[in-house]
């Protein structure tokens, strides 16, 4: 191997790798030894290119290709499926697709949205990994010219009460990972001053070896200030702004494009997780937004995976030009960083600005005021090539198309539909329904998340008109979506919600994907928002394994079918593959961030019951759909049908709900999800600190299965005013009267069964369900 790598005689580390005549074995070794994570076929493609150039590549060139062609950067295994099912969903309200999607908000304003994963870094170093995940998603929104206004965090961990001896070697305990991730989100998110308004926490044994940490962001922009992630033309100067560059985060993207193994944990722990600094990010955001506001920028893009090597190439490529960069100008954290390390480092808190030459001084003055470093490091070339120099020496010179356009594969997949369904074995019907409901309320997947929610600042910016916890002061319960009022002079609102459906997707990926969209639409409609756009984060296993890829394809298809029927575009998204450990893949986990438009926030609806005597209704159809349900998980049921989605019914119900809430006919609304209708009514009682009387025919279902079924497209409503008005507004939809609000107990009669539970008993079970397990 040594003989293939030759040091170039310059006063800094620079190597040429003589792979022009190398055989397959040698190419494989080069890929491994340099940490490129390129396949044999990809290495041969690299070899062919440099043979044509008639010279061996430098270390910087090979490292660049390792970054640019990684799964993380070029979506080489997923792109064909995303194109087939998602990219074609168009809507006139989509303004731009870039690092974040940009949607129309009102005549003069737009909003940006994106969700992405930060799984591997968070599994290795939960606090720093989660923090830098926030940093990254903020930059994705910022670089569209948008001001970040809300964060969301769907999280997935192993069970908090996992016995220590059940912990696989080298794996950190879920309690430690949970605590670290929550603290990382808290300390970074709170410091940058962007409210964390929604999210979810899901526990399952399948996440023990590989947690799933997703983070989403929305931002608001003036339409005439939206930026492309591109240069505008020759004459533009590249200004690198923000933090200094160091050795942290080298090979982050290649790390994210492999399965986690013992060896990797040790190897990468030292370097592959970046270090976040919210107090660099906060003024960086201000300074960038001031430059945006004054119209000084041609384009902007954040430095994330692959660092400079990706951002320079992609900005130049998107603009249709080339780039020249002088690496010695990049401000460094430490001395003696090799040129290739500067080029691929993923040090945090950095943005790349493309600035017309005449505006450079004005831009630099803004950053100086905020004490944020900003340095011109290169310029745009007319010719479509990237040239990188260090102290005058050329360290990289490649055609832009070859470099930036990664490979794309149509990998083989196995259709999961071909597997025989497992037989359904429901648990025995409970003799004590009250106890059955209490055990669901205290299940960590259902129980109160207040302990976490209140550690996140969900109100900074003073826009959060509907908050994540809703109800009587001191007695609040979970809401379905948060609503922001981003403009001081308008009552128009932006609702934000997330959904994740691994429990269904692992059994039936098509229905699981569809359910994620149904769930997020339910959440948005519940508060009175019309679903408007989605951003998806797809967390799956190794795509080189056909069964994993088959699940991925079906889940994407499920998302696509429902989104298309509702006319919901996905202007941004993220795929995270290789979420496996030697033990197993993680449960396939589609996560969806949904945004909705509220015409007038003063008509928003919360989940807490309001008034004794008011009528309660159930909107939607309840079926024997308990596959993957929380009831089966807690009470030991097996198999069963996963909730299906009828997108047309969903669409009609959403329309009906919105009409009713705008007319002021709904006092409270909460969707049915984990734990079914039983849990939904209980949570509404908890938030309102008032009881309810519910009487219900299970329509031939066993009463417990009806009560805890997780059928999609369902909401429980409290009517405001004359019940007949609400009934009229929802005519033609599957609506049935459930009972009425009142008393200090939740009293349920379902078929021949009846039970009652006091509010305080329910609150004890629900409030402590998760926190009880955190002490260990």
């Amino acid at each position, binding site marked *: 191997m040594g003989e293939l790598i030759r040091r170039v005689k310059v006063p800094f580390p620079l190597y040429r790798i003589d792979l022009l005549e190398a055989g397959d074995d040698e190419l494989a070794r080069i890929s491994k030894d340099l940490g490129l994570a390129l396949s044999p076929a990809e290495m041969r493609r690299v070899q062919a290119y440099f043979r044509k150039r008639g010279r061996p590549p430098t270390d910087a060139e090979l490292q660049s290709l390792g970054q640019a062609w990684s799964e993380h950067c070029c979506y080489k295994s997923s792109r064909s499926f995303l194109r087939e099912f998602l990219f074609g969903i168009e809507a006139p309200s989509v303004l731009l697709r870039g690092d974040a999607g940009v949607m129309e908000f009102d005549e003069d304003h737009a909003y940006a949205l994106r969700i992405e994963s930060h799984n591997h870094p968070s599994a290795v170093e939960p606090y720093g990994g989660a923090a830098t995940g926030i940093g990254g998603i903020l930059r994705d929104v910022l670089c569209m010219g948008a001001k970040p206004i809300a964060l969301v965090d769907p999280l997935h961990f192993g069970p908090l009460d996992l016995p220590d001896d059940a912990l696989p070697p080298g794996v950190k305990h879920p309690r430690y990972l949970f605590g670290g991730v929550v603290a990382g989100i808290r300390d970074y998110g709170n410091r940058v001053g962007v409210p964390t308004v929604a999210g979810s926490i899901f526990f399952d044994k399948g996440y023990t070896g590989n947690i799933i940490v997703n983070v989403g962001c929305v931002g608001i922009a003036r339409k005439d200030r939206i930026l492309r992630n591109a240069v505008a033309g020759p004459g533009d100067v590249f200004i690198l702004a923000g933090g200094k560059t160091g050795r942290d985060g080298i090979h982050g993207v290649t790390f994210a494009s492999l399965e986690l193994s013992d060896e990797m944990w040790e190897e990468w722990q030292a370097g592959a997780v970046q270090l976040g600094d919210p107090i660099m990010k906060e003024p960086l955001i201000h300074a960038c937004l001031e430059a945006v506001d004054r119209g000084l920028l041609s384009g902007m893009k954040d430095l994330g995976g692959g660092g400079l090597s990706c951002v320079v190439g992609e900005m130049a490529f998107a603009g249709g030009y080339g780039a020249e960069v002088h690496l010695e100008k990049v401000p460094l954290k430490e001395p003696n960083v090799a040129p290739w390390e500067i080029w691929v480092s993923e040090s945090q808190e950095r943005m790349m600005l493309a600035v017309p030459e005449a505006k450079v001084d004005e831009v630099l003055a803004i950053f100086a005021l905020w004490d944020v470093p900003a340095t011109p490091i290169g310029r745009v070339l007319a010719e479509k090539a990237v040239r990188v120099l260090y102290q005058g020496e050329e360290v990289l010179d490649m055609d832009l198309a070859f470099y930036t356009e990664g490979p794309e594969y149509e990998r083989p997949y196995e259709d999961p539909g071909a597997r025989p369904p497992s037989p359904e074995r429901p648990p025995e019907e409970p003799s004590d329904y009250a106890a059955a409901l209490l055990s669901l309320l205290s299940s960590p997947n259902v129980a109160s998340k207040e302990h976490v929610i*209140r550690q996140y600042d969900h*109100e*900074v910016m003073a826009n959060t008109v509907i908050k994540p916890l809703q109800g009587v002061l001191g007695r609040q319960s979970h809401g379905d979506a948060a609503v922001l009022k981003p403009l001081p002079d308008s009552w128009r609102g932006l609702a934000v919600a997330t959904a994740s459906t691994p429990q269904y997707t692992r059994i039936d990926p098509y229905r699981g994907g569809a359910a994620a969209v149904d769930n997020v639409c339910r959440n948005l409609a519940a508060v009175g928002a019309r679903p408007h756009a989605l951003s998806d984060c797809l967390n799956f296993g190794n795509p080189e394994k056909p069964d994993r890829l088959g699940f991925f394809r079906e889940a994407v298809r499920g998302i696509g079918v429902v989104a298309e029927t509702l006319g919901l575009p996905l202007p941004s998204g993220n795929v995270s593959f290789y979420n496996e450990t030697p033990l197993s893949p993680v449960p396939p986990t589609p996560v969806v961030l949904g945004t909705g438009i509220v015409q007038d926030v003063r008509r928003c609806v919360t989940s807490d019951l309001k008034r004794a005597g008011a009528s309660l209704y159930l909107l939607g159809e309840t079926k024997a759909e308990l596959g993957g349900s929380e009831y089966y998980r807690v009470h030991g049921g097996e198999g069963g049908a996963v909730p299906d989605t009828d997108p047309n019914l969903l669409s009609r119900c959403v329309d009906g709900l919105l009409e009713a809430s705008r007319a002021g006919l709904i006092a409270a609304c909460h969707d049915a999800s984990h734990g079914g209708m039983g849990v939904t009514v209980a949570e509404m009682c908890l938030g309102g600190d008032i009881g309810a009387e519910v009487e219900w025919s299970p329509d031939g279902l066993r009463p417990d299965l009806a009560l805890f079924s997780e059928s999609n497209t369902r909401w429980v409503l409290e009517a405001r005013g004359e019940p007949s008005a609400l009934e009229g507004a929802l005519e033609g939809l599957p609506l049935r009267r459930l009972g009425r609000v009142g008393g200090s107990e939740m009293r349920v009669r379902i078929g021949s069964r009846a039970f009652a539970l006091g509010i305080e008993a329910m609150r004890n079970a629900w409030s402590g369900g998760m926190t009880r397990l955190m002490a260990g």
Partner: protein
Amino acid sequence: MNRDDVRVCVLTLEGTNCEDETVHAFASLGANPEKVHLNQLVRDPPGRHRALEDYQALVLPGGFSSGDYVRAGAIWASRLRSGLRRDLRAFVEEGKPVVGICNGFQALVELGFLPGLGGETDVPQASLATNDSAHYECRPSLLRYENRGRCGPLALLPRDGILQAPSAHTEGKFTVPQGEEEAVWGALLEADQLLFRYVDPEGTYAGYPWNPNGSLYNIAGVCNPEGNVLGLMPHPERSLSRYLHPDWTRSGEEGYGDGRLFFDSILTYVTEAF
């Protein structure tokens, strides 16, 4: 002076993050607020220099100034002391209001301006220590206004009235040196420096979570002996509108939120005094 002539300096530096909503609060009441970076006061950036004396009120907003990595507000206080102390002292001596909210309150305590028992001090007399829960707390708070008239800028607030404003901090526990609790409490009462105390919905001085941090005597806010320097932990700018209250969908109330009077009162004081 007229309200639209009242210039309010809302001070920022890296890590302050409540400046926009604080500016909005004053702007929505007809004043002329401006977000001013500390560097604009202590340096001379081309075309952007500002002089503190040109403003009638100074607000230190919430956030995590400089990351609060040493102690909440300590770095901010130290930078104010080194670059702006003389201007600040002159500002205070003229009787102009200086208002610290959350991180701004922490900075004013670190700076020795609050509580300022017997005058400004070189060493902080109190501290806003880590919450009893040992972590960040973002939750609704109910504040009883208990000042008897010393605090001119808040004169419009009804005595013993309840103001709802969310708390959002990690370090908000009002603490004084051990053994001096009763003496400080007595001195605060005597000089009428007490502003706000945390209460529960029944109006009693309750413990956690109504007292979100474990503050001594449920203290949420104080002023200096002259009444023109004031600070509090909760965020009145976050209850400016009724629709920012956490329970507005229940109460059916519309229009202004509790926090509006806080800012209205400060502006009324300035227009009458200057």
